[in-house]
């Protein structure tokens, strides 16, 4: 099937592209093509435009010790079937440049800035190649993800100014916000250019939470990497550890028992439920509808208590392990959980009517922070944000993992792309998630909850996609020596969705910014890594 698709893709390319393909192979549902770096933009945009593929991740590997070059890897998901295209290209260390993908694929912009920061490969033709995750005082010529970088070295501080985009004209002024915000949220800097109330331009400066996760992972044995993955983005910790475990299991060819797959599904949905309730509460709070906000927070607290009751941790940490899960759910607990979920459903129904019936609330939500479908497509948005703009993507359905292929669920979709649409999508997803937990626990197969321990051979590649509460996230692993990754690429849902905020606030008034921000619910830690 995938073989057939590869031949179709190759034959659809113009001869100057298909003849330049250096090598090609099919590995599972992945179509690998090695191409010269000069052809990266035309080949990628051909696959995107003709095959409806979307960019999943784009990263570099320091392969100098093995093959004497840097590798660039572009991962694209094909629409329709559960197939992927992996474009592989080589960059000469003596001339560390490659043609930028950004003019053809706007979503690549931040990836290329990240590759410049961490690996020191320059995308020529990039419209705005400035730092993304490394701070302004980071010296030039030191690239943390290169293999010859010594993490113990003392890095000198060389301050230089960050080039913000400037809007000029009479009456235009700037509002700098952050990194320490008024609310209890993560650090990031927002630079607004405004004329009176309406926002003319917003530039987001992130990187404050950059902790060097990918480099750290290269020195972390796989079993401990699960704990690191849980701490990439705290409230999506289960989704991250699941993606990491799935990738390592695929490297080692481990077969996870059925019961563990169902349990993982239930845990993943429990995580989604408490996250969605937090988002909805935040939206209510930002339109000053405190009663509804407190209702949502009480429900969220109950969900976290339920997590605590099941696993001993409010964030479901310490649940995932390589080859399965640590914590089983015995049948007496299942009946208690199911009873609690029935109460949740009633409470959420009541809450929805409270939230959506108030005219003054709807007035703030409708038409605010619109993200049109074309923008969502260009920026490859993911998760509930994409689905509220009519972009019908959900990893659970499109690339099923754990036990999702055996369960039935609906993917809620809206077209308006405003805050109200995002709220409605989240309210509907909440119902679907509760139903998924009920289904997974109701049809839990008997048996083991983990497979026997397994070895991970060196030099293999594996990836894993998971639909986190914020949307599609991916972990890409290349196995190395000593039971550790050679390269670990993490791409959180927010890495794509952050860019939407700059579009969504244009023309809106400054006081609506917190509301729009909350409706997108972006992770700073997941983005900065």
């Amino acid at each position, binding site marked *: 099937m995938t073989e057939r698709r590869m031949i179709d893709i190759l034959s659809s390319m113009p001869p100057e592209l298909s003849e330049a393909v250096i090598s090609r192979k099919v590995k599972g549902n992945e179509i690998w093509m090695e191409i010269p770096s000069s052809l990266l933009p035309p080949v990628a945009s051909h696959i995107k435009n003709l095959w409806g593929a979307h960019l999943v991740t784009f990263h570099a590997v320091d392969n100098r010790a093995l093959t004497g070059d840097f590798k660039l890897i572009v991962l694209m998901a094909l629409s329709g079937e559960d197939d992927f295209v992996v474009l592989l290209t080589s960059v000469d260390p003596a001339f560390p440049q490659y043609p930028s993908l950004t003019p053809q694929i706007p979503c690549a912009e931040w990836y290329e800035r990240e590759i410049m920061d961490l690996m020191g490969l320059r995308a020529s033709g990039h419209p705005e190649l400035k730092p993304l995750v490394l701070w302004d005082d980071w010296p030039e010529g030191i690239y943390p993800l290169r293999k010859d970088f010594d993490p113990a070295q003392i890095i000198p501080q060389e301050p230089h100014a960050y080039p913000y985009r400037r809007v000029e004209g009479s009456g235009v002024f700037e509002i700098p916000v952050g990194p320490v915000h*008024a609310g209890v949220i993560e650090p990031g800097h927002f630079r607004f250019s405004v004329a009176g109330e309406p926002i003319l331009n917003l530039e987001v400066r992130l990187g404050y939470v950059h902790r060097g996760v990918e480099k750290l992972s290269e020195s*972390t044995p796989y079993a401990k990497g699960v704990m690191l993955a849980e701490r990439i983005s705290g409230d999506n910790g289960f989704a991250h550890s699941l993606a990491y475990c799935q990738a390592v299991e695929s490297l080692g060819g481990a077969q996870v028992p059925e019961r563990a797959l169902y349990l993982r599904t239930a845990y993943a949905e429990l995580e989604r439920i408490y996250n969605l309730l937090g988002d909805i509460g935040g939206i209510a709070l930002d339109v000053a509808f405190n009663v509804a906000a407190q209702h949502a927070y009480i429900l969220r607290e109950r969900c976290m208590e339920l997590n605590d009751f099941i696993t001993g941790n409010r964030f479901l940490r310490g649940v995932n392990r390589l080859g399965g899960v640590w914590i089983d759910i015995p049948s007496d607990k299942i009946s208690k959980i199911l009873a609690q979920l029935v109460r949740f459903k009633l409470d959420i129904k009541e809450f929805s009517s409270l939230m959506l019936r108030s005219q003054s609330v709807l007035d703030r939500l409708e038409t605010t922070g619109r993200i049109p479908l074309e923008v969502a497509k260009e920026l490859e948005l993911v998760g509930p944000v994409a689905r509220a703009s009519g972009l019908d993507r959900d990893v659970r359905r499109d690339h099923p993992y754990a036990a999702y292929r055996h369960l039935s669920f609906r993917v809620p979709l809206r077209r308006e792309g405003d805050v109200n649409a995002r709220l409605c999508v989240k309210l509907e997803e909440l119902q679907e998630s509760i139903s998924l937990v009920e289904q997974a626990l109701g049809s839990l197969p008997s048996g083991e909850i983990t497979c026997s321990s397994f070895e991970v051979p060196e030099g293999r590649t594996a990836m894993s996609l998971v639909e986190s509460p914020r949307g599609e996230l991916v972990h890409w692993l290349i196995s190395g020596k000593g039971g550790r990754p050679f390269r670990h690429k993490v791409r959180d849902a927010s890495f794509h969705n952050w860019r939407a905020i700059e579009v969504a606030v244009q023309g809106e008034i400054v006081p609506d910014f917190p509301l729009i921000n909350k409706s997108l619910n972006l992770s700073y830690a997941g983005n900065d890594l």
Partner: protein
Amino acid sequence: MLDIIRKGVLRKGIVTSDYPQEGTPRYAARLGFPKLRTDLCKAHHVCFRSCPTNAIQEREGEIKVDLGLCIFCAQCARSCPEGAWTMSPEIELAKRSRSDLLSSSSIENKSIQELGKSLDAMIGKVFGRSLAIREVDTGSCNACEVEVNALSNAVHDIERFGMHIVASPRHADLLLVTGPVTRNMERALMQTYKATPEPKLVVAVGACACSGGIFRESYAVRGGVDRMLPVDVYIPGCPPRPEAMIYGLMLAVGKLNDKSR
């Protein structure tokens, strides 16, 4: 409007927890303070190797846990072939100095009733005055933020102790710092500290803020908050539960009384 009041107030009843008077709901599986039964320990040192943050250390021939490093992942309890480690339900682990966080199993924690009583006395002493808290995230994974936010929800409601979270360090008595201090947040943290009026307290929340936690060896991280600032109270946990934070804040409040005297 009536409808909202009916639904919001009458049907929900009181949801606020009774902590610290009544303690916390306890579940058998809760992952709190890791305790070692020395009579079972055969010194295989499997736990040393399984700990992701090297929190288990040998000092003067005794095996101790550095709670400032511990992320409460239970790997020690899961890996020990003798079953010598158990995750106890203790969560009131906040301490006033970094060295106090190094605990061996021989240290007896106060019983929850005693703690409740002493906290009661402390609340009595400080009730009527308010404590303004400013939260600063210096690179946390956002789990600590979720729990800090939970402090002001209707269930944990720290306003009942006269504590509230304020929007600016200029209004704050206490800085609640989460996360390992990243290289990128160092300056912002120092500026926030400078903007906070005296007398001020600094509370390090979670393993990352106490010691750098799982990230402490990264190039992008400076390490625990006490590398930059004097820390008054350390609250272990990954993340600490809201009750554990309330306990730590109470400890800090006691300290504020000492400072302003």
